[in-house]
């Protein structure tokens, strides 16, 4: 672990710093040879899909198609460390619960199934058959299948996800909380009613053609480093890139491609953003609406003066509805509201509007900085409004690009991991498999936690992930999990969710993405769908970390066979050869016609995206403009109003990842690009805010969130770090700050926790004991 220090990082994103970090992580995992060898096959046609992010693969012409954070994920999976029953059983679970996420991660790969022994408070070895019997008995004993919830991590393959949702629905419930509920749910909820597709419309080809790329609330340098390759190429050919982000992030400023010999030899780099807009946290909506207003005003001016129109009237007339109402609403918006709520001066918004108007092909990207707010659905719809004003949808070089997190989070939804399935999907599923699927909607993530707290959910099964660390309101979530009769986790590594467990608990270890999966018919590959709807094959190449590991499809099949003895589905036959699973997927989803053939092509195939063809699967048959008022009654606004008489300085906290972190997995203790080393309990804060609250860089504080539900939520012992962030805004890492977000604070229309806009106050604290 690095020495604790705060030291400004001068280098570009990527470059030698990334290579040094790659070597360090491979060495640290004890896998310098195997890990590096494995990387040669990452995101290659005959290799495996990186278990990290969902950014698409290029045309596979490069030997190296991975990034620094992909290396961390691969090194973590290829580690030589083993979390055997002896290693985990050497300590009580209560003792493990006191350890950090980093310490748990460092135990290495879980090698055998384990069961919690309440008498000794330790995990111990259990045979696979006994584990499946135990879960099946608990599930069958429940008086109502809706008393079980089945979580899915975004790493789960299409084949595993399809079998999993089938098993759960044959069992009798639609309780499918998933990681999408906590990240891009608002993207689907915002896009589906407006353009008829809940996914992005662009491909990498569009990135090669765009004149302008707008990046909202996203930090690709840490979260999607391979995206920097596309941005670098775009920048080099003169495409404008506007980054809209409260924090100054190195990956949005400069990037040195480790594969560019000249850049590396000369210590050079490529500028990424042509314009960096320092919007305040949660101010994106007002900013985008301001852009729309300026575009409409410019169009009005152009038409009055006989100039070329700015707005694409032909597109709007042929393809959209709701334009007049939207236009009036946008033109009526008050500039003082836009400036106050965005935190930007009108002149700054005008500068971006000018770039937008001058660009013929525009892509808008966004990440969690857009989705994890109360009004995220409306914000995404405002992005669509902005693009549609100039016809920037469904044509080359233009469109929407929600940048997904985990490698198959989009594919899992495609496969039916959805607590609100459509009737058409259920009809088809029931017809193909000969059963009547449950029709009532199930629990999402927030709903599952609430159900557990209310005693309405007694069995929690997780296909991967780290539910306890990913979810908001940590203490409530812990109580929820601990109230279950049984918690089961399919996992590769030991994590927080395994030490916050139900009365009974099981750990079921599975193969990793990099490992060879041998079934009765021979070696198997699985498929994944990336952020741009490309579906392709992924096949491992290393020997499994243990001979006792099962593949995720096999775990589902054996559990289903044990739980559903009268099922018509030939569970164990299907997993003998995953081609048979893909045939069933093809039978349920028309878009997968010829599935087994199509994936033989390197790079796979793209699922049909109707919006990218200007075919609108909406009730009106057209894309919709949507009018929304600038939000002025968020939890932050309310906290400021209620604390005014106390003179409390209310700050808006955004939770962020560190650079050595992927989702909840903490690979290391550094956040290189932000200059933080060897520690995680830090708060990034503006200098003037420090002065106002009478504190200084290096002081320690406790963070208390300010909600009106009467519950005190506090996260203790954070070191203040002076940082380039707008006044009134602070940032800190999750999961450490997850306890500050109440379960009931979520996005309207999507129920995604509002982890990017938490009203808080800071109080002086002592430095933690050494």
């Amino acid at each position, binding site marked *: 672990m690095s020495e604790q220090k705060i030291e400004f990082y001068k280098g570009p994103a990527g470059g030698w710093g990334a290579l040094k970090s790659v070597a360090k992580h491979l060495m640290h995992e004890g896998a310098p*040879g195997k890990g*590096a*060898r*494995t990387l040669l*096959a990452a995101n*290659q046609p005959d*290799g*495996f899909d990186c278990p990290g992010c969902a950014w698409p693969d290029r045309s596979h012409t490069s030997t190296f198609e991975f990034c620094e954070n992909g290396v961390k994920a691969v090194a973590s999976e290829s580690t030589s460390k083993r979390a055997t029953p002896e290693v985990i059983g050497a300590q009580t679970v209560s003792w493990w619960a006191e350890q950090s996420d980093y310490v748990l991660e460092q135990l290495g790969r879980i090698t055998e199934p384990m069961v919690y022994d309440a008498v000794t408070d330790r995990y111990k070895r259990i045979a696979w058959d006994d584990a499946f019997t135990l879960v099946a008995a608990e599930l069958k004993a429940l008086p109502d299948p809706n008393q079980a919830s089945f979580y899915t991590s975004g790493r789960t393959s299409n084949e595993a996800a399809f079998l999993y949702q089938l098993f759960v629905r044959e069992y009798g419930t639609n309780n499918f909380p998933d990681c999408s509920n906590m990240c891009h749910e608002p993207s689907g909820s915002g896009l589906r009613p407006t353009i008829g597709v809940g996914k992005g419309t662009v491909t990498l080809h569009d990135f090669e053609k765009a004149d302008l790329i707008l990046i909202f609330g996203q930090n690709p340098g840490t979260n999607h480093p391979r995206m920097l390759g596309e941005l670098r190429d775009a920048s080099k050919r003169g495409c404008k890139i506007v980054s809209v982000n409260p924090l100054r992030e190195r990956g949005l400023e400069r990037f040195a491609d480790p594969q560019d010999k000249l850049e590396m030899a000369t210590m050079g780099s490529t500028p990424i953003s042509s314009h960096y807009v320092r919007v305040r946290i949660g101010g994106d909506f007002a900013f985008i609406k301001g852009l729309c207003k300026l575009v409409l005003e410019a169009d009005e001016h152009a038409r009055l003066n006989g100039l070329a129109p700015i707005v694409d009237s032909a597109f709007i007339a042929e393809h959209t509805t709701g334009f007049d109402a939207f236009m009036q609403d946008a033109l009526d918006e008050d500039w003082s509201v836009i400036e106050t709520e965005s935190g930007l001066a009108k002149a700054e918004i005008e500068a971006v509007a000018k770039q937008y108007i001058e660009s013929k092909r525009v892509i808008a990207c966004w990440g969690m900085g857009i989705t994890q707010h109360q009004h995220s659905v409306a914000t995404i719809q405002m992005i669509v409004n902005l693009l549609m004003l100039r016809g920037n949808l469904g044509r080359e070089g233009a469109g929407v690009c929600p940048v997904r997190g985990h490698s198959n989070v989009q594919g899992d939804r495609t496969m039916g991991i959805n607590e609100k399935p459509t009737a058409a999907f259920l009809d088809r599923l029931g017809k193909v498999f000969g059963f009547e699927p449950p029709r009532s909607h199930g629990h999402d993530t927030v709903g599952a936690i609430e159900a557990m707290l209310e005693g309405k959910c007694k069995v929690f099964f997780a296909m991967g992930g780290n539910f306890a660390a990913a979810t908001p309101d940590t203490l409530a979530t812990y109580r929820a999990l601990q109230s279950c009769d049984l918690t089961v986790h399919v996992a590769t590594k030991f994590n927080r969710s395994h030490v916050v467990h139900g009365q009974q608990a099981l750990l079921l270890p599975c193969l990793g993405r990099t490992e*060879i999966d041998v079934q009765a018919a021979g070696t198997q590959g699985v498929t994944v769908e990336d952020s741009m709807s490309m579906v392709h094959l992924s096949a491992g*190449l290393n020997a499994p970390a243990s001979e006792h590991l099962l593949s995720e499809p096999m775990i589902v099949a054996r559990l289903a066979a044990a739980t559903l003895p009268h099922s018509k589905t030939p569970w164990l036959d299907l997993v003998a050869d995953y081609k048979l699973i893909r045939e069933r997927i093809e039978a349920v989803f028309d878009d997968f016609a010829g599935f087994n053939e199509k994936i033989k092509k390197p790079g796979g195939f793209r699922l049909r995206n109707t919006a990218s063809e200007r075919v609108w699967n909406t009730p009106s048959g057209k894309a919709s403009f949507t009018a929304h008022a600038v939000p002025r009654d968020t939890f932050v606004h309310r906290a400021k109003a209620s604390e005014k008489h106390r003179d409390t300085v209310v700050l808006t906290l955004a939770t962020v990842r560190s650079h050595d972190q992927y989702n909840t997995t903490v690979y290391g203790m550094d956040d290189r690009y932000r200059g933080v080393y060897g520690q995680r309990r830090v708060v990034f804060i503006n200098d003037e805010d420090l002065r106002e609250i009478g504190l200084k860089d290096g002081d320690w504080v406790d963070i208390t969130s300010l909600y009106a539900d009467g519950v005190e939520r506090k996260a203790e012992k954070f070191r203040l770090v002076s940082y380039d962030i707008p006044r009134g805004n602070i940032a800190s890492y999750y999961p450490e700050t997850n306890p500050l977000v109440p379960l009931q604070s979520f996005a309207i229309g999507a129920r995604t926790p509002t982890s990017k806009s938490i009203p808080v106050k800071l109080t002086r604290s002592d430095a933690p004991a050494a």
Partner: protein
Amino acid sequence: MPRLLDDLETAVLAKLAELDTGDGVPLTRLAKQLDQRVAVLIRTFTMLSDARLGGVAGPGLVRLGEDEGRWRAWVTPAGRAATKASA
């Protein structure tokens, strides 16, 4: 009973036996000679090694390792014997 090698495995093993004079052969060289991607070679060598896959120990015909920062494959005595037998 040892499993039968498929065509690719047979070809890869034969080429490795031909090129390996005791110091192993770099994977990149083998990839070029066999016109195969490195990912395919790594998977094939893992299948031909003694690693346990699907609960069954591998045939132990090759060994994968690192030498001076380069990834190499070695043919084992069992691998050489298998090549001779199939020749």
